[in-house]
Structure formats: C-alpha cells, structure tokens
C-alpha cells in the first residue's frame, strides 16, 4: 500500500522530522526529482546544514545560487533574517548593528515567540512571489525546515506571534504568511521519519499538532531508511534455530530489523490512518547527488513526477 504524494499545484513543500531521520536527504532528493522533471526548483535550508553537498553545490548563500538549469539553492540564516528586518525598520545600519549585538535585543527576540521564525518564512514567501517576465521565478520551493522540536515554532509562528501583534504591518505580514502555510493549493508539509519507535512516536505527535491545532496541509509521512526484506519466512525456517555462524547472526539481525521496521510502519499507518511513502535504507549513507538517486527515484514515483 504505497501512498501518492500528489504534487499538483503546490509550490511550497516543507520537509521536517525528528533530528537524524534523514530530513535533509529527503528534501535534497525531492528537489532533485522535481528539477529532473523540469520544474524550476529552489531548495532552501535554515541555518548551516548538509544540503549543499547533497545537491552538488560547494556552499550555499542567502541569495539563491543556480546549480543546474532547473535547480537553485539557498540558505537562510535566522540571525541574518532578523538583521535584515531590523535594518529595514531602522534605516540606521550602524545603530541597528549595535542593537542586534546587544544582549537585550537577543532577549527581546527570544521573548517575542516566533519573530525569528516569522522572518524565515517571510524570506521563503518572497521567493515564492518572485517573478520574472510575469511568471514565477520558481515553480517549486523545497524548504528543509529545522528538526521537529524547532519546526513547530517555525510553522506556528504566524499564530503565536499573532497573539502579540493584532494591528500594524507585522499583523498584515502574519496574515499573509499564515495564509500561505494553510493554503492547500500552495503548501504541502511532509514529515520524515525512520521506521524506529522514537521517531515514529514523535512523528505521530507532530502530525497531530500540525494537522490539528495548526491546520496545516500535511502529505503522507515519508518513511526513510526502510530496510529491505532479504529473507522470506520460508528462508527463515530453513536457517533458524541454534547456531552462531556469523552468516546466521547477520541474517537474524536483518530479519529482526525488518520485522521491527514493519511493526513501526504498521503503528504509523494505524495512528495516522493514512498510507505512507517508503524510501529504502541505503547501505552507504548518501553524501552526493549520485548516491541520492535511489531516493529521488522513489520520491519521483510517489509524487507522479515524470522524468
């Protein structure tokens, strides 16, 4: 039962998940798949991550760099986004630098829940709206969002900050960004997990939070690093039993790992009531575009992206 990850009109895909589940890998693979299918794609990471090598870029900067004809990538540094914002408000660069450097301002930023996150979303929104010759500059933006503990503030920023700012330009911005996130025809939020207990549990919690309270458009969960089935039940009957031959130890390990992964997959399906997209476990961790290919293919199939 494979899920369809229908990428129809959506132009913003936000990829998140527990730290270490391969969130960045999935974001990179999706960006490559979309780009290979001819969509002009912009991949964006927040903070200093591992996106650049996976896309075949040397480094990423705050302005998009073109990696291939249909693939660009950028990095948003939350602190820079805050600095840009303050510069824009103050128009005295020297004074705003001074202000940003002061601990008091950092406390202010920390105390305004969601301000930094809001500014990150604002940059993404600007790219989404960017046009050249009256057509959008990018067909699709893939945002490698912070790990789930930090992505909730990002995705709930318009609402949490809205409680503080009801009027004025910020309130206006909040409505625009909140609208962008909640619009099913624009945005798709993808939760990445591995078929392991802790990651699955966190995914279920985050799913409830994002689909319920935040009312965001969620796609089917992406189960990354799914171990393949190497031995049939009949094989297992043949070699099961006592014996400490290293081949058998390895085989038992593979069988048990697959069994555990399947049971976690089942738990995820039951809890969310939806099918999932599976991506295979790669024996060599992907570190460049070529090694990402199996995942990009899997995502292209699930998303109906024709090559």
């Amino acid at each position, binding site marked *: 039962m494979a899920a369809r990850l229908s990428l129809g009109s959506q132009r913003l895909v936000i990829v998140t998940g*527990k*730290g*270490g589940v391969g969130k960045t890998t999935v974001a990179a693979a999706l960006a490559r798949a979309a780009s290979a299918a001819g969509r002009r794609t912009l991949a964006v990471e927040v903070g200093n991550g591992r996106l650049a090598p996976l896309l075949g870029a040397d480094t990423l900067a705050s302005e998009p760099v073109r990696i291939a004809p249909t693939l660009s990538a950028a990095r948003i540094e939350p602190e820079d986004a805050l600095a840009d914002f*303050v510069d824009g*408000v*103050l128009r*005295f660069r020297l*004074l705003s630098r*001074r*202000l940003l450097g*002061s*601990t*008091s301002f*950092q*406390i*202010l930023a*920390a*105390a*305004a*829940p969601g*301000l930094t996150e809001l500014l990150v979303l604002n940059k993404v929104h600007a790219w989404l709206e960017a046009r050249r010759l009256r057509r959008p500059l990018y067909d699709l933006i893939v945002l490698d969002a912070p790990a789930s*503990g*930090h992505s909730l503030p990002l995705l709930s920023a318009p609402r949490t900050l809205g409680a*503080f*700012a*009801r*009027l*004025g*330009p*910020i*309130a206006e911005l909040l409505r625009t960004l909140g609208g962008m996130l909640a619009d099913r025809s624009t945005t798709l939020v993808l939760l990445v997990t591995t078929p392991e*207990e*802790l*990651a699955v*549990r966190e995914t279920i919690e985050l799913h409830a939070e994002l689909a319920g309270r935040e009312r965001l458009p969620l796609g089917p969960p992406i189960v990354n690093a799914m171990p393949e089935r*190497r*031995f049939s039940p009949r*094989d297992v009957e*043949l*070699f099961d039993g006592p014996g*400490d*031959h*290293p*081949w*058998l*130890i*390895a*085989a*038992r*390990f*593979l069988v*048990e*790992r697959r*069994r*555990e992964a399947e049971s976690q997959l089942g738990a995820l399906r039951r809890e969310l009531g939806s099918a999932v997209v599976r991506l295979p476990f790669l*024996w*060599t*961790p992907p570190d460049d575009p070529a090694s990402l290919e199996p995942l990009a293919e899997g995502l292209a199939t699930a998303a109906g992206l024709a090559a």
Partner: protein
Amino acid sequence: MTPLRRTLEEGRIVLCVGHGGVGKTTITAALATWAARRGRRTAVLTVDPAQRLKDTLGLGRGDGPRRVSLGGLGARAGHLDAYLLDVKRTFDELIVALAAPEQARTILENRLYQNLSGSLAGTAEYMAVERVYRLAHEGGYDLVVVDTPPARHAVDFLDAPRRLLALLESRVFGILKDPTTILPAGGSRLARFVLDAVLSGLERFTGIGLVREVGDFVRAIDTLSGALTARIRAVQATLAGAGTSLVLVAAPEPRLVSETGELVEALGRTGLRIGGIVVNRSLPRALFEHPADVTPLDGLPPALTARLRRGYEDMQALAARQEAVLAPLVAKAKAPVVGRVPLMAAGPGSLAELAAIGAHLFPEADEPAVRARGLGQ
C-alpha cells in the same frame, strides 16, 4: 572496576550527555536501574522519555516521583524513583523559594515570565540542573542519574549555570531597565533621543509591547539576583565536584557521530571532563570478531547460502564503517569506552530489558538473574 562503575557505586551524580537519537534516555534509565539493584537509593531524572520507557518507569503525567518496583530483579536494599522534568514548575518553585511572597507573585504573573520561562535560551537547561541539585541535596538519595535535555548542544545544559550567571552579572539588566545604556558612555543627547525614538518606533511598528514588558520583568527579577547568583554558584560547584561523573552516550552511525563530535568539542570548552563513553546501538559482536573468510555454511539451498553470505558481507561492511567513524570520536573525547550496548529491536519495554542493558555494560558484575541479549544474538 571501570570508572563508570565506581561512580555508580560510590558517586553522587551521573550525567548522561549525547546527541538526540543515540538512545541516551534508555541508557540513563539502565544505569539508574543498575545502581538501584546494587543497593543504592537512586533517583533518575528524565526529560523526554519514549512512551514505553515512561510506562516501564511508571511515569504518567506530572514530574514524579514514581517509585519503580524492582521486585523480581533480585534487588538488594536500594530503590529507584523516577522523575520527569517539568521546566516551568521547577522555575516557579525556584522563584517561590528565593523571592518574598509579594515579589514572587509579581514575577509569576508577568506575561513575559510565562513566555520566557520556557523560551529564553538556557532556561530549560538551567532548570534541569537546578532539579538535579535539589534531588542530590534534599532528596535523600545516594545517587542521581540524569538524562540531559535534548538541547541543540547538550552542553547548554552543563554550561547553563555559567551562562545564567553571566546574564545576571552582565549589563543586560541595566540595559533593559534603561535601553540607552548600550550607547557609549556619555553618548550625546541626540544619540539618546534617536535610540529612544527607534525603540518606541520598533514597538509601534511591530505592535508588540515587549520592550517595556521585558523591562518590568527584569526589574522584578533583579531584586532576587543576589539570591539567584548564590544558588547558581552552589549548583555550579556541585556539577564540577568530584562526586559528579559525565557519561557520553554515542551511537556508531556517521550522522550521529559527527554531531556527537561537536558536542565533545563544546564540552571541552566548558572544562567538564567526560568520565566514560557508552557506545549504544552497536552491531552484533560476531561481525567484528570474525575474519571475512569464514567457512561457508553447508546444508542449505545454494541460492539461500548466497544471500546469507551477501547479508553477512553487507553487515560486516556496515560494522567496519561504524568502527571507522567511532575511532576519532573516542580519541577526541579522551575517555575510555566503558561499555557497548547492542542494537535492540525496540526501546526497552520492561525493567528486565533495562537490567539486561546493565548486564552488557558491567558483564563482570555478578548478575545471574539477567541475561544480556541484543538484536540478532
């Protein structure tokens, strides 16, 4: 006797640090269970346990304590109490303990305090340390085993007292009470005027009345900075004391090792020493111990034999890669690997499984009741 075992048997506090996803909480609970079974009155403080571990420790809502029943594990006189960290409540209790009743109420009711007590960088970490301090000094325990919070760098936890002190002692309070102090001494009246205008403009523009509210909050909390400073110093001394031991939990997976390496570097900068490393989620030993040219298996269909061989070879390559990524980490941490815990199919669902992890870590200890077992073994 390994240094880790000595701390568990004789020390006061064991702090488990490690990057998220390495199974730190499980190892924390297993170490606490082991110590309790060796006769120590033990508290385990966890931050965000998985549901199964919560169930195992009997933790529901609230922050405990729950007395964990060790019956059936042949426990001697010790016992195990499990606590769940509640950051907000710990902060509230600290304020109540240090402030006069009237002050305490002012602070607790401040809207910013309510936000800040959860979101100000380092608060969660400091409150975890605060909780440890209270358990160790007032809880009546021999040993407190602590799972550090899932901070971006767990070092924030250990560094929390110092950073909070720096905050109290810095000019920040002055700045917040009077923002113009960020101007150079004797700044011109014009500069002051501009800054004032800018700050109030910022407030108007954002529609957020935060600058003033931060000021109110800081003035209120400033009145207890003396008491708070004394408390933080005491907590700091406890962390750096001889009775405290740091255990680094690592998992031999490339993505986790590189992040654990960053943590080790950051720990080095705080001056706290790692007492030992526990390697969690290790692959079956057989994959490391046998040479590649093992004698083939007989008596099975050739196609299956070929697949068995391939599975073994893939696993061995994986094991070799894991060892290769782990070695530099161990060198960097300048601490011995005190134990390896095999990869388990699932998080521990019973005390017996927690005890089994203890048996892996201290195989030399006399533990006939518990059998060490991991995935594929």
